[in-house]
């Protein structure tokens, strides 16, 4: 019976060997990125997992402050705006270099921005640059590159002419479409190969060394980075673990230094730990009502009754569990300088009255409606809870239907639904990223709702250079949206992660942006 102990010993030896990890030395930060990135090209990428990696390698004109997200100098040392708010001038630092030694200058940015706008690049995010003069026309092949309002005034000065004022432009240029791409690598390897390991050239704190699809992506410190002295980590490893429960086990087992997306069954356990990091996230979970298809939902009284009769606090406490805040408005109350109108209320008695006024006292005769959601555990739970709340408070029966993501997207965009779960994450810290969804011609509207007054207010806000007046106009527009109720906001998202206590310099912030430049891991 000596077999068992011997086998265990051999096993232990083997596992010790594999855990020591084949000679990768130095300070490393290992994070679960949740999925395999589509690309590492900042011009082509679209999602958060890509952004987590890209922002470590490509430094924009400005960078997010890791704590409060205000724009801090990146490649640009300083910037200024013309009084009419239409021209921004960025002064670039002279010592910024690509990892191959090539300098980063104003032309780098001009070229990068024209590249993303070019129809040949086929970038989904090109529209974010359409605030630049003639940019939209260029993408649509209606004008040539020279007409686009990006000018390298001298080697290290970049002037940007906008089509309309964007007061938060420095924050906007932190976003990935505005980040530079290395022309020398793109020219050499081609637009869809240059970002592979061994070819990619970076101007940020880290540069790509290993990319094994579905296995891992490893970045190493970029020694040519202008501020390399401040970079503490030697290596950053991103893992594409799709199963959040396994990712959490890996983290708890010391195989990762950080994870997000904690399975809801584990939240109560994890919440108590010191390495649990949480905070509001710049997004709203809400339901859309289809107001175009002729159903009871075309009646605003019905929509308001539905919105009034759910218990958001319960949903947040028992389903969300991360400290989500019940929505009082559509825009999250997180944007500096904007106080959204708090018009989302709960009042079951009033809801009943409104429904009666709409012709359905105690829900009698109310037609059957269906809640559509994309398959995800929390979506289902919320739909089940809301179904029950409506039944209890209004006496109406609704059905629930889940669909796989792409089918759901198609149903929603073709208005083939009654009530649909939705969520929106803002791209930049401004209410406009939420409000311009519901203009009549917005592709993201998808509710069939249209209000000329709302559209007019937003048009005026877009042309308004004064921040205070602009904010008031947007508030007025949001009031219209919430009163007419084509949507039913439920809660403001919360982001939760586990970050090992020996990791310093990662802060929770509402865009979930985590520059790793100054992060360190204390062993």
């Amino acid at each position, binding site marked *: 019976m000596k077999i068992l102990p011997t086998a265990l010993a051999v096993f232990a030896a083997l596992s010790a060997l594999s855990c020591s990890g084949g000679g990768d030395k130095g300070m490393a930060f290992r994070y679960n990125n949740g999925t395999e990135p589509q690309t590492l090209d900042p011009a082509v990428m679209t999602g958060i997992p890509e952004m987590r990696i890209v922002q470590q390698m490509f430094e924009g004109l400005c960078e997010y402050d890791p704590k409060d997200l205000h724009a801090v100098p990146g490649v640009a040392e300083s910037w200024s705006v013309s009084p009419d708010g239409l021209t921004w001038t960025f002064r670039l630092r002279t010592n910024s270099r690509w990892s191959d030694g090539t300098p980063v200058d104003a032309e780098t940015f001009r070229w990068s921005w024209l590249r993303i706008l070019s129809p040949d690049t086929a970038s989904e995010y090109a529209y974010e640059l359409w605030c630049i003069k003639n940019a939209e026309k260029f993408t649509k092949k209606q004008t040539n590159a020279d007409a686009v309002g990006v000018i390298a005034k001298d080697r290290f000065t970049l002037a940007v002419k906008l089509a309309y004022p964007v007061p938060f432009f420095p924050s906007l240029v932190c976003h990935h479409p505005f980040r530079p791409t290395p022309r020398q690598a793109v020219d050499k390897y081609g637009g869809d190969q240059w970002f592979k390991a061994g070819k990619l050239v970076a101007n940020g704190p880290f540069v790509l060394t290993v990319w094994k699809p579905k296995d891992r992506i490893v970045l190493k410190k970029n020694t040519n980075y202008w501020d390399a002295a401040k970079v503490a980590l030697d290596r950053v490893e991103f893992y594409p673990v799709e199963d959040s*429960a396994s990712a959490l086990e890996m983290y708890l087992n010391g195989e990762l230094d950080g994870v997000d997306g904690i399975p809801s*069954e584990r939240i*109560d356990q994890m919440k108590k730990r010191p390495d649990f990091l949480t905070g509001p996230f710049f997004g709203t979970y809400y339901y859309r009502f289809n107001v175009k298809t002729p159903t009871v939902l075309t009646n605003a009284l019905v929509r308001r009754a539905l919105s009034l009769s759910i218990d958001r606090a319960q949903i947040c406490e028992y389903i969300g569990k991360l400290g989500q805040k019940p929505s009082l408005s559509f825009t999250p109350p997180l944007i500096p300088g904007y106080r959204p109108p708090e018009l989302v209320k709960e009042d079951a008695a009033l809801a009943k009255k409104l429904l009666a006024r709409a012709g359905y006292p105690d829900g009698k005769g109310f037609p059957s409606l269906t809640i559509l959601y994309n398959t995800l555990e929390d979506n289902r739970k919320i739909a089940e809870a809301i179904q029950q709340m409506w039944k209890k408070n209004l006496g109406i029966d609704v059905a629930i239907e889940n669909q796989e993501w792409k089918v759901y997207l198609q149903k929603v965009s073709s208005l083939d639904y009654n009530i649909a779960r939705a969520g929106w994450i803002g791209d930049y810290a401004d209410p406009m990223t939420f409000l311009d969804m519901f203009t009549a011609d917005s592709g993201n509207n998808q509710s069939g709702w249209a209000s000329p007054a709302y559209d007019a207010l937003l048009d005026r806000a877009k042309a308004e250079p004064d921040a205070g007046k602009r904010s008031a106009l947007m508030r007025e527009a949001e009031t219209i949206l919430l009163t007419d109720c084509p949507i039913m906001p439920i809660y403001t998202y919360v982001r939760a992660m586990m970050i090992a206590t020996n990791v310093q310099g990662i802060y929770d912030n509402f865009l979930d942006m985590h520059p790793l430049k100054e992060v360190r891991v204390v062993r």
Partner: protein
Amino acid sequence: MSDNVKPSENTPVKGNSLMRDAIRRLGKNKLAVAGGIAIVFFILVALLAPWIAPYRYDAIDLPNQYLSPSWHHPFGTDSLGRDMFSRVIWGSRVSLAIGFVTAAVALAIGVTWGAVAGFAGGKLDQAMMRFADVLYGLPFMFFVILLMVIFGRSFYMLFIGIGAVSWMTLARITRGQIMSLKNNEYVEAARSLGASPFRIVFRHLLPNALGPIIVYVTLTIPGIMLDEAFLSFLGLGVQAPMTSWGLLASDGKNAITSYPWLILFPALTLSVVLFSLNFLGEGLRDALDPSSRNRS
């Protein structure tokens, strides 16, 4: 072997006496009887769910979420405070219906297909098995989507459809059995007596090939019950808040360490059903087997 214990040693077994004999022999197999009783019990539970479940499957009570098992909630409560005991009871309806309907359809098609191919041999066999290969080559998920396009969300049609695309392994097993049995003497004998091929296959060969087929079918039913959870994930199975064992198990998979009862009871129920099916299947195999009469 003593010849009076085995009077029909090498004669093909005929249908009627076979069934009567099989039932009698099945009745003597205690485990099989226990399995059968358990299955009947579960079917009764499914039929009577509205009357025996203490709560409705959709009775949400958020503040009472994740309660551990107690007198009021013998299986605890789930993430929305619903009684797990009641949900397991309600879930039996979907799971059992799916398991049996699908297995029956797959059995009917697979056995017929495999028997015909195996017996005919030659070109017909090749053509039939290549057809099965084509169906194999297209994964399950594809069929499901295809079927949904054809049948819409019609719940039972979908499962008849799934049965209709999951018969290929059965066909292969049947074919293998038939191929090795068809050269036996009694087939030649039956043939020389002028029995039609149809009769030879279904009266003479199949009864003797039933053993492995029955075991395989009892093995596939759990798989089908679990597949249903995946279909529901795609929006094709049951719709919330109705549930099934497969869904309950997949919902509970992340709760192993935090709320183990969420996974324990659905998994346990599934296992009990499985064991019952299994004993019944083994019993049936022994009972149907013409040459295992003296096995107790």
